[in-house]
Each structure stands twice: as C-alpha cells, then as structure tokens.
C-alpha cells in the first residue's frame, strides 16, 4: 500500500496554497510516497516516555525592555510591495462575490 495517495497530495497542496499542475501532482505523489516511507522509520524508535524537544536550547520568556526604537518608514515597508495605493498594500479581493 502506498503511504500517500495522489488525492491526499492534492488536498495538502490546497491547504498549502500551491496551485499545482496535474503532472506536478503525479510526480510529487510518487516521490512523497518514497520519502514518507523512509521518514516513517521514526515510528520504530521506542520513545513513549521520552519528552519531545521543539528546540535545541531551552530558552523561555526572552524579553527586552519595552523601549521605542526607530522602525521602517512607510516608504521602506512598502518598497517591495507588488502593488501600493495610498501608502497601503493593495491586495486582491479577499471575499467571494457572494459574500
């Protein structure tokens, strides 16, 4: 049995906001099946009583003084924007026509 199906890859691509072409889906499904088969080896490690590590070094609650510091100007912040209007990021519509 395959570890992952083409339909699952298509679903994951939708969740990841990747508009993949059909041939890409075929290609990735086959490759991801091999990769997931290989990484699934982690399941063989007996680790029920082992705490997970999300980070290499345990650092918690790192604060700095709450002081006002210079930031980017609006022009700098917008300098790489694909579209700008009135000192703001101009974006495509975010709601459907029916909304």
């Amino acid at each position, binding site marked *: 049995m395959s570890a992952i199906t083409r339909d699952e890859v298509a679903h*994951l691509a939708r969740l990841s906001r990747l508009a993949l072409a059909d041939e890409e889906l075929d290609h990735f499904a086959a490759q991801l099946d091999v*990769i997931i088969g290989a990484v699934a080896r982690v399941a063989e490690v007996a680790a029920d009583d082992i705490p997970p590590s999300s980070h290499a070094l345990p*650092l918690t609650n790192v604060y700095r003084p709450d002081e006002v510091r210079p930031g980017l100007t609006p022009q700098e912040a917008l300098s790489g924007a694909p579209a700008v209007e009135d000192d703001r990021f101009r974006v495509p519509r975010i709601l459907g026509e029916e909304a």
Partner: protein
Amino acid sequence: MSLIRKSAADLGELIASGEVSAVEVAQAHLDRMAAVEPKVNAFLHIDAETTLEQARAVDARRAAGEELGPLAGVPIAHKDVFTTRDMPTTAGSKILQGWKPPYDATVTRRLRESGLVILGKTNLDEFAMGSSTENSAYGVTHNPWDLSRVPGGSSGGSSAAVAAYEAPLSTGTDTGGSIRQPAAVTGIVGMKPTYGGSSRYGLIAFASSLDTPGPFARNVLDAALLHEAFSGHDVMDSTSVDAPVPSVVEAARNGDVAGLRIGVVKEFGGDGYQAGVLARFHETVELLESLGAKVFEVSCPSFTTALPAYYLIAPSECSSNLARFDAMRYGLRVGDDGTRSAEEVMALTRAQGFGPEVKRRIILGTYALSSGYYDAYYGQAQKVRTLIARDFEAAFQQVDVLISPTTPTTAFPIGERADDPMAMYLADLCTIPTNLAGNAAISVPCGLADEDGLPVGLQIMAPVLGDDRCYRVGAAVERALQSRWGGDLLSRAPEL
C-alpha cells in the same frame, strides 16, 4: 603570492600596515571573479561599484586614524539568504527575484562594522533546501575541483567562491549540514556554530529551530576570525544565546590536542560510505593519536534515526515559515487581473514562484503537521530529537569531541541526484545530528579520495558552546596535514 591566494588574516595585516589598500585587494578579487565566474557561477549578484565603495570607505577610516578590526578591508562573499539593504536578496528563489530588503541582517551589519568588503551575493539551493545548489532558480554552481560536479549545498555558491579564490571568506547557513557538507566537498573549512551563537535576524528562515549562520574559509584561523566577527548575542533574535562568544581565535592559534579525548562515532561508517572517504578518515584518526590525543570508539545509537527525524522536523518548520510568501506584501505576484481572489493569486504565485524541492517540503511538512498524523510524525520526530541530544550528552561525558567523516561521499556529478530526493538527503547523514541537538561542529579538509581525487572532509563535533574545541582540533589536523603535504589541499586543485 598573488593577493587572491593570501589568507584573510594575512590580507588584514597587509591592509593594516598600509602595504596594500582595501581597494587594491577588492579589485584583485573582482578581477578573479570576472575571470572564473563564467566557469564557476558562484555569485547571483555582483556590483563592482558597490564593492569598491565599501573598500574606499575602509581605506578612508584607516587614513583618519580609526582603530579597525583584524578583517577590515578583507573581501567576503555573502550567501544570498541574508538581507542586504544595498543588494538584492533572493534566497535563490524566483518568488524573491529583484527584491531589495529595507533592512540589513544582523550578520550583514556586523560584517560591515568589522570593515569586511562584500563582493556580492552567492548562489544557494532555493531557501537553503538542498545539498547541491542545483535547486537554485538561477542555475547551478560548479565545483572548482571538477566543473562537472556539485559544490555541495545549500551554501554551494559560498563554498565554490572560496575554493576558486574568488573570495578568502564567505558566509553560509547550516540547517542540516549546509555549511559543513559544501566545505567538505570543495576542500575548505566550514563551521556550524552552536545554535543561537550567531544571529538569525534578517536570515530568511527555512527551519527556525535549526538554522545557524557560520563561516567558510580556506584555513581554520580565518574561519575563526570571521566566526568571532559576526557572532554574539543579538536582542533582535529571541533564540540568540546571551553568553560570550567562545574563544575560537585563540583555539585556532593554539591547536594542541595532547591529552584530548576524541570519540569516533561508531554509527558513521560502513555501507554507503565511499572507500576513499573512509581511508582518509581513518588516517586522520591515526594522525590525531600521533599528536597525543586519546581516541575512543563511541556509540550514539539514535544518530541512525536523525535523518528521518530531520526530514519531518525541517519540512514542518519550512511549511510554516514559507507561508509568509503570500504575494501580498513583497516579492512576486502572479495572476492579479481583477477577477481572482487573494487566495487564488496566492496559490498561483506560490506555484510559479517556488521550485520543486521547496514545494515537496512544504507538502511534506503540511502532511506531518496534519491532525491525525501529527503524533506519529512530527511528535515522534521531536522525541527522537531528545534522544539524539541525550546521546551527545552521554558521549561528551566520555570524550571532549566526536569525529566522523563530514559526508559519506565526495562531490557527486551535477544531475546525478537532482530528481531523486532521498539520494540527495543522504548527503547530510553525518551532519544532521548536530543541528537537531544544537551543538557546534566544523569540517576541515583531510585529503583526497583515491578513486576520484576529490576532497574529503573531517567533521569535529563539540558540545553546546564548545565551539573553540572544533577550532582547536581543526587547527591541529590542518597543521599536521599541511606539513605532510607541503602546502594546503587547495594548492592541489586544478587551475581554472
């Protein structure tokens, strides 16, 4: 000796004494780049005028009597994953083509403050995901030892630039081996500092719990000088370690291993390792013994599951980090014709802007983090991560450093693994445990493999904040091997 073949330390002294100007040194390297870039393709962005301007500024500061550091006026190649205000920053991706960041990364800022002269931005696997630099959207970089082979990756432009004498120093980032592996396969020195020892602020994120900036150089002392120049606590990076930078320069000058306990990692060797790599590694172990080190075999059983754990953790973090490339605030935007929604534009842009390896990892990470799979994949990988850290801890009770080959093979031919992701991932087999545990490791050249005449790297791993031990052992190996060879390894590379 021509200026381009000199060490960074020597160049710094020559410039400080006024024997040569920073402008002359920069020009010599720009000339070399013009001559060999058509063959090597290490750089994504070169702007001679910006480079010479920086060099002139250093000369002016010197002339004004300013006290400058040991690398002032020395040229450096900068990996194109660090933001730079005066140069485009692409991360090797089409999605950031032509982007000029509005701020400097902390590493960039510190290079400038040290008076280093940035020659340009170097090629990399897209978003630092890869081991060959073939995943760049802007073409492959060629290994100066054999132009038909990869320079390693992801920091392959940086390793090739230094090995091709285009720059005495370069920057890299190491998430699973992206500094040590390219250093090993191009015959130079590459160091992954302790996680948090060098700032990630302004480094375009791939896997935030693993990404670590570090230096490349042609010798151990130069790497240490660069390490010291850009490392240290940074309030802009909340995972930055608030501790003094280990005394790496002193360790690189010292190089005494008498009485040092060295552990050979039992799990790294055997099947899948090239004979010539193992031969050079075993000779180096004997060499260390002859220098007075005590060598032990040490078992780290969890290291055998480091690779699968890494390929769950790194893609998971990448799938989250790369969500920021949404076509709204900066970078590419595709299909915004007034009829499409933001979500459609986002999906079209990401499909066109990202290359295949980045897409694979985003999908893999999304899968590993999905409800229903989370515990079996991401959760379990995090437990393996704990076990690997425990293996290191136990090993460092017995020995001062651990050693292994840096890579299982020498540089592979361009194209050989390009469409076989699992084969590509194996290049990082020996380097990944250090990223998962956050400790320090270096790769130094230890000879050429008999089969193909290509460089082999020795990996030296030290505990968290034990970076100085990497340099101490690296310097010992370098000194002994160079006296045996009558020069450095790179002097045996073919002329370009």
